[in-house]
């Protein structure tokens, strides 16, 4: 590891101020102040059509406990947990393939995984609509198959299959989860890949050398040794999925609303900013909580593992006991 310079404010006050003031001021004014503003609004009351007065009421949070919204919270949680789990199941083998691939292929394979992430989210969602729809590609293929099978059966003298019923894949739960996984997968693969890449391969070989098979090595060596990567993958997938707005909006049906849908509605048709702010802040609280959870986990884990690694490779002085 290269040392980084550790200058103090006194050493170069000019450079310090120039590099500190503009970005930090920007963050304060255009990120934290607005967030703080809606935090205040979340304790506010609507007065008239556009006027809002901050009266430090908890009514907005209490309103959020309405069964209608609680149902949506639980649905959001369910969608998100399911999406995260699916991403982990798909993401781990993919990350394994990339991380242990030949050095020449690695950057290329990684690029293949992240490239969709570079294309517009809206367009990707739209592309899914065209695939999953009643008149979409998958149903088109199924219809063709159905037709051929029907013809074959009738030719053989069996009763036909009847008319083709399109499989509903859009504007329902399936469509939403499919879309969420589609969007979130790279978020899962990248941290897993990074953790596997950092992993000293000789640990896996040691496990094999001691007689363990591939599955055992995976469960008892790879998983515990990449635990921080797995946790950060889970969280980095979980947070944005929890706040998804476009996917349920475009791929979901009338009963697929998520938290973000409620928030957006309060700033649109429903026009109830204090309530919208309160729900947005619920999301922010959850985000903070998850980030803190990850930080604590990572700090504890990394400090334990890193020490071990450093000592193993460092020079050792004096005779051992």
């Amino acid at each position: 590891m290269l040392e980084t310079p550790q200058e103090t404010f006194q050493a170069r006050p000019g450079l310090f101020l120039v590099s500190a003031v503009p970005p930090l001021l920007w963050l304060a004014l255009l990120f934290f102040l607005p967030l703080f503003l809606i935090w205040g609004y979340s304790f506010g009351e609507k007065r008239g059509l556009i006027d809002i007065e901050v009266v430090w009421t908890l009514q907005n949070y209490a309103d959020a406990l309405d069964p209608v919204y609680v149902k949506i919270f639980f649905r959001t949680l369910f969608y998100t947990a399911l999406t995260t789990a699916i991403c982990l199941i798909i993401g781990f083998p993919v990350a394994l393939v990339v991380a242990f691939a030949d050095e020449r292929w690695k950057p290329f394979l990684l690029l293949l995984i992240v490239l969709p992430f570079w294309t517009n989210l809206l367009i990707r969602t739209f592309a899914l609509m065209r695939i999953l729809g009643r008149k979409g590609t998958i149903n088109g293929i199924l219809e063709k198959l159905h037709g051929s099978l029907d013809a074959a059966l009738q030719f053989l003298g069996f009763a036909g299959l009847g008319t083709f019923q399109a499989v509903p894949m859009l504007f329902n739960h399936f469509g939403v989860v499919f879309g969420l996984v589609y969007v979130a997968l790279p978020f899962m693969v990248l941290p897993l890949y990074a953790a596997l890449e950092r992993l000293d391969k000789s640990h896996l070989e040691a496990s094999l050398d001691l007689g363990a098979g591939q599955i055992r090595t995976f469960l008892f060596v790879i998983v515990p040794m990449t635990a921080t990567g797995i946790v950060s993958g889970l969280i980095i997938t979980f947070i944005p999925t929890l706040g998804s707005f476009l996917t349920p909006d475009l791929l979901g049906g009338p009963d697929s609303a998520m938290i973000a849908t409620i928030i957006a509605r309060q700033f649109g048709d429903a026009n109830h900013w204090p309530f919208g702010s309160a729900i947005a802040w619920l999301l922010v609280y959850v985000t903070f909580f998850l980030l803190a959870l990850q930080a604590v986990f990572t700090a504890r884990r990394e400090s334990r593992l890193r020490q071990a690694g450093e000592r193993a490779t460092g020079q050792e002085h004096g005779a051992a006991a």
Partner: protein
Amino acid sequence: MVFSRRPRQLREPFAYASKLGFRLFFLATLVFLYAPIILLMVFSFNDSKRNIVWRGFTTKYYVKAWENTGLVEAFINSLLIAVVSTIVSIVLGTLLALLLWRFRFRGKTLIEALSALPIVMPEICVGIALLVFFNRIGWPNDLPWPMNLSKIILAHITFTFPFVMLVLRARLVGFNPELEQAARDLGASQRQALFHILIPYLRPGLVAGGLLALTLSLDDFVITFFTAGPDSVTFPIKIYSLLRRGISPDINAASTVLILLTLLLAGVGVWWQTRMQKTTLYTANRPAVQ
């Protein structure tokens, strides 16, 4: 000795990429990720409204999209917003990265955590927060073009420059501070050392970060949705409103144009990155320490 059968060929135990099962799984994942996008692009040339049968090649939907003045205007708006916010993002991101890399000060860990927050904060929260903020300070809504895009630009800079900062910090980890000391030793002033040594070293990071900011800005829907006024429409917003009215093939065509544009940007980024890595000037800076 009679050999009953040839011994099975042993394989590298962890070369997952060469195991059939893993290969098929990886391939299936790629199909999952790419099939929708590729089909979208292919069928933008299809002479039919449906995404399943090929009815012959046509560019009529491109013409149709081009004739849709709203769409073209939105596209121009998007490009303008992306370019302006990228430039400002690079400046702010570089400053922040330098601050966090170079200086030791109280509360640094807190600042580090806070400055990465815009990256993880759910977009919907940032979007409505900015909506409320601009509303509260009474930012005028009826400015002439291009000033009517100012709110969107400010919003985009806010969520893109932390990304630039992250990319640059990753790059700075590999910088050998002795290089700057060597320049000073050879008589360069502090400012000269900064501009002759550190900034050139950062260039690949600046390009990568800039491209990232550009695509993030071009892609953004949610935050833009809440900060855009009625007359400041960006490309994703326009597509969204078209989609709300129903799927039509000219959306395919317009989307294809944007996909190709981002692919081009990604391609330039990758090409630049590999070219930079091949330049000895930049790799020689990293001593072989591990």
